[in-house]
C-alpha cells in the first residue's frame, strides 16, 4: 500500500497546482458570465441612448427592479429545492389590500407591516404544507394559491383600490434613506441577508442538498418536509416585503397588483443561473437577473421601442438563459 501512494498522483489540495488557464477561463465565464452580460448590456444601452446612463435613470431602474428582485430571491430558494412558486403575484395583491386597509390611519405603522409580512409568510407556509404533507407537486399547490389569493384580494377589497394611506406607510415606497430610495436599500439588505442565509448557514446548505438529491438529504438527517415548508414560508415573507413597498409606492392597496410578477421573478432567477433541475443557483445571480430585465425594459422604453417588442425580447432572453444552462449541464 505504501508504494502505491507514491506511485499514484496525489492531487494537491492546498499547495500550488499547475494552473490550467483554459479551465480557469471557462470557470470565470460560467461563474461571472451573467455579470459580464449585464455590464455589456449597460454599456450597450449607454451608447444607444444618452438618457440611460444618468444618475436619476439608473436609480429609477434599480428601484423598479427592487420589488421583483426581492420576490425573486425567495423564488430562487424555492427553485433550488426543485420547486416552483406561482403564487407570488397574487400574494402581492392580497398583502397589498390587507395591509393598506390597516394603513389608513388609526393604527400604528407596525400593524400593517406585521399584517403584510404575516400574510405573506402564511401563504408560503400553506404552499409548503400542501406541497409536502399533501404530496402535491409545488406547481399545482402554488397554482391553487395563485388563484385563491387573487380571489381573496378582490373579495376583501370589493375589487376597489384602498387609498388614503398614512405618510409613514408611504415612506416604504417613496422615502429616501442614506440618500437612496428605501426600496433599493431593502433590495440590497434582503439580498445580503438571503445570500448569507443561502451560502453560510445550515438552512442554505440544506436547501441545496434537497434540490441536489432529496433522498440523500433525508439520509443525511435533514427533515426534508419541514425544511421545504420553511423555504416556501421565507419566499412568502419576502413577497410580503415587496408587496408592502409596492403598495406604498403607488399609494394604494390594489387587488389587481402583481399580475405576472411570479413569472418575472422566476425569469429573474433563471436568467441569473438558477437551474430548474435543482441544487443550483445564487442570490447575486438572481439580483443580476432582475437587473437585466430592468435594464432591458428601461433601455427599450427610452429608445421608444414598443412594449410588444419588449415582450418578445424578454422571451428570447429567458429561453436563451435556460438554453445556456442546459448546455452547461449536458457538458458535465
Amino acid at each position, binding site marked *: 500500500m505504501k508504494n502505491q501512494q507514491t*506511485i499514484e*498522483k496525489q492531487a494537491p489540495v492546498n499547495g500550488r497546482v499547475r494552473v490550467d488557464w483554459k479551465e480557469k477561463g*471557462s470557470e470565470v465565464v460560467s461563474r461571472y458570465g451573467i455579470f459580464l452580460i449585464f455590464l455589456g448590456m449597460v454599456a450597450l444601452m449607454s451608447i444607444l441612448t444618452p438618457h440611460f446612463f444618468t444618475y436619476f435613470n439608473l436609480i429609477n431602474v434599480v428601484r423598479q427592479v427592487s420589488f421583483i428582485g426581492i420576490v425573486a430571491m425567495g423564488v430562487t430558494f424555492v427553485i433550488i429545492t426543485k420547486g416552483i412558486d406561482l403564487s407570488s403575484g397574487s400574494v402581492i395583491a392580497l398583502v397589498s389590500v390587507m395591509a393598506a386597509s390597516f394603513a389608513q390611519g388609526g393604527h400604528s405603522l407596525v400593524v400593517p407591516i406585521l399584517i403584510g409580512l404575516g400574510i405573506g409568510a402564511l401563504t408560503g407556509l400553506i404552499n409548503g404544507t400542501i406541497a409536502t404533507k399533501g404530496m402535491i407537486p409545488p406547481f399545482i399547490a402554488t397554482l391553487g394559491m395563485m388563484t385563491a389569493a387573487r380571489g381573496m384580494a378582490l373579495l376583501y377589497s370589493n375589487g376597489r383600490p384602498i387609498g388614503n394611506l398614512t405618510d409613514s406607510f408611504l415612506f416604504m415606497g417613496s422615502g429616501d434613506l442614506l440618500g437612496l430610495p428605501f426600496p433599493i436599500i431593502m433590495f440590497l439588505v434582503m439580498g445580503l441577508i438571503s445570500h448569507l442565509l443561502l451560502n*453560510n*448557514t445550515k438552512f442554505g446548505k440544506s436547501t*441545496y442538498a434537497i*434540490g441536489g438529491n432529496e433522498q*440523500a438529504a433525508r439520509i443525511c438527517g435533514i427533515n426534508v418536509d419541514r425544511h421545504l415548508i420553511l423555504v416556501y414560508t421565507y419566499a412568502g415573507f419576502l413577497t410580503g416585503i415587496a408587496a408592502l413597498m409596492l403598495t406604498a409606492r403607488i399609494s394604494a392597496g390594489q387587488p389587481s397588483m402583481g399580475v405576472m410578477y411570479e413569472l418575472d421573478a422566476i425569469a429573474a432567477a433563471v436568467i441569473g443561473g438558477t437551474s430548474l433541475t435543482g441544487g443550483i443557483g445564487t442570490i447575486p445571480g438572481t439580483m443580476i437577473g432582475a437587473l437585466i430585465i430592468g435594464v432591458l425594459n428601461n433601455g427599450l422604453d427610452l429608445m421608444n421601442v414598443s412594449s410588444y417588442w419588449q415582450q418578445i425580447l424578454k422571451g428570447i432572453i429567458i429561453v436563451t438563459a435556460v438554453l445556456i444552462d442546459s448546455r452547461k449541464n449536458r457538458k458535465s
Partner: protein
Amino acid sequence: MGEEILLEMKDISKEFPGVKALDKIQLTVKKGTVHALMGENGAGKSTLMKILFGIYSGSGTISFKGEELKLSGPKDALKKGISMIHQELNPIPEMTVAENIFLGREPVYGKTGWVNKKKLVQQTAELFETLNIPIDPTTKMKDLTIASMQMVEIAMAVSHSADLIIMDEPTSAITDKEVKYLFEIIRSLKSKGVAIIYISHKMDEVFRICDEITVLRDGQYIGTKRTDELDHDSLTQMMVGREIKQVFHKEPAEIKEVILSVKNLSKEGKFKNISFEVRKGEILGIAGLMGAGRTEVIESIFGVDPPTSGEIYLCGKPIKIKHPSDAIRHKIGLLTEDRKLTGAFLPLSVKENMIMSGMNKFLNFGFVNGGKVKQSCVSMVEKLNIKTPNLNKLIMNLSGGNQQKVLLARWLLNDPDLLILDEPTRGVDVGAKAEIHKLMCKLAQEGKAIIMISSEMPEILGMSDRILVMHEGHFKGELSREEANQERILQIAFQ
C-alpha cells in the same frame, strides 16, 4: 472459436477539454469470442465503447466486418450490427416489458403506424423463450426487480440480432443465479458467431467466460492476452501497474462489547423477525441475494423507513429511530447502496457533499465556519487519498471510486460508533476498493462497529468477522469467519 477478425480498432484517441481520455488504443475482437475489456475506473473503457457505439467520435480507424466503420450515432451502430447493454438501466417504468424492448421498432399493421400489440407480445415471448428468461412480456417495467430489469436489458441488446454486443458491467445488479443465465446466453450467442465485448470489474466472471482480455490504464493501451495466459495476480498487475498481492487486507481487530442489538424487527412485506447484534471492533457481513431484504433491514434501522415492530438497543438501552436524524444523533452512519440515487449530491461540490450529514459541528452562531470545514475536509481528502484538484470541484466530475470515498468521508466526519455500509465497493475500481477495505479494518481497530452488505462473495468472505445470511426477508443463519465459504452461504440461504 473463430480466428476471423470481426472488429479492429486502431490508434483510437479521444480528447476532452483538458484531458486526454484515450491515447492510441488498439482493440481487436474475433468472431464468436468473448473479449474482456479491463481497467480501473477512469481507464477509458466506457469512452472507448461509446466511440464504438457512435455516441462519441474519436480519431483513429475502426474496421468492422472488413469494412471501415463510420457511425453517425447509436442508431447507425445498431443498424450495422453493434448493440450495447449499458451500465446504467434506462427503462420506461410505466410501459410494459415488451413495449420497452421494441421501443421505436414496434411491429405495426401495414403502414398505418398502428402498433400490433398482439404481435409485440408474441415476439417478446419468443425472444424470452430462446433466452430462457422467465418474465411475462406484459408486466410493467416498474414492477420488475432490478435484476429482472437487467435481464430485459440484455434481451433488448440480443433482440437487435447484432454481430457484436457490448456489455458494460452487465452483472453489476444481478445475482449469481442470473449471472448463470447470462453466461448461458453468452455461450449460445458465441456458438452463433456473435462476438461480445465484456466489461466488468469482477475478475472471476472474466476468467469464467472470456477468451481474450485487453487492458487499459489511464487512457493507455496496456496489452491484449489470451485468458489462459493470465491469472488473478498478473491481470491485476496489468490493470493497476503495481502489484496487489492480496485483494483483501483483513487485519484483525479486538472485538469488544455489543454496541447495537436488534430484536424481532419486522416490516410488513419486506422482512420478518430480524434479530442480531454487532460488537465494537467487529465487521458484520450480511450476505444474500439481491432482493433478500438486506437493504430494507438496515434502512429501517437507520430510520429511512422505520420498522412496523421490533426493538433496537444501543449499548443495551432501547432507542427509537424514526428518522435518519435520530440515527445520526446516536452516532450511526449509513453509506447507501446506490451512490447516484441516494448518496451523492451531484450538482454540489466535494466539500458540500462531505459536510451535509454533520453540519452542526461546523456552525458558529448559526453560520457555517468555512475555515473549520476546509480543515476537516482537507484532512479527510488526505486520510482517504481522495483524488480531487480541490474541494470546490463538483462531485459528479470525480471517478466512481473517489465519489465513494467522499461519501465515506461524509460519515467519518461524524465520528460514528456504528457504520453501516451497503455495497461499499460497488462500481469502484480495484485500487480504491483495496483502500476502502483497508480503511474498514482500520475503523474496526479503532473500536467502531461495521455492518457491511455485499453481493460480492469474495468481499463478504474476505472482510467479515461474522456473516449473517438473509433470504426472502428472513435471517437464515450465521457463520463465523472461519467456517464460512461460498457453498455454505448458499446452502444456508436456500435451505
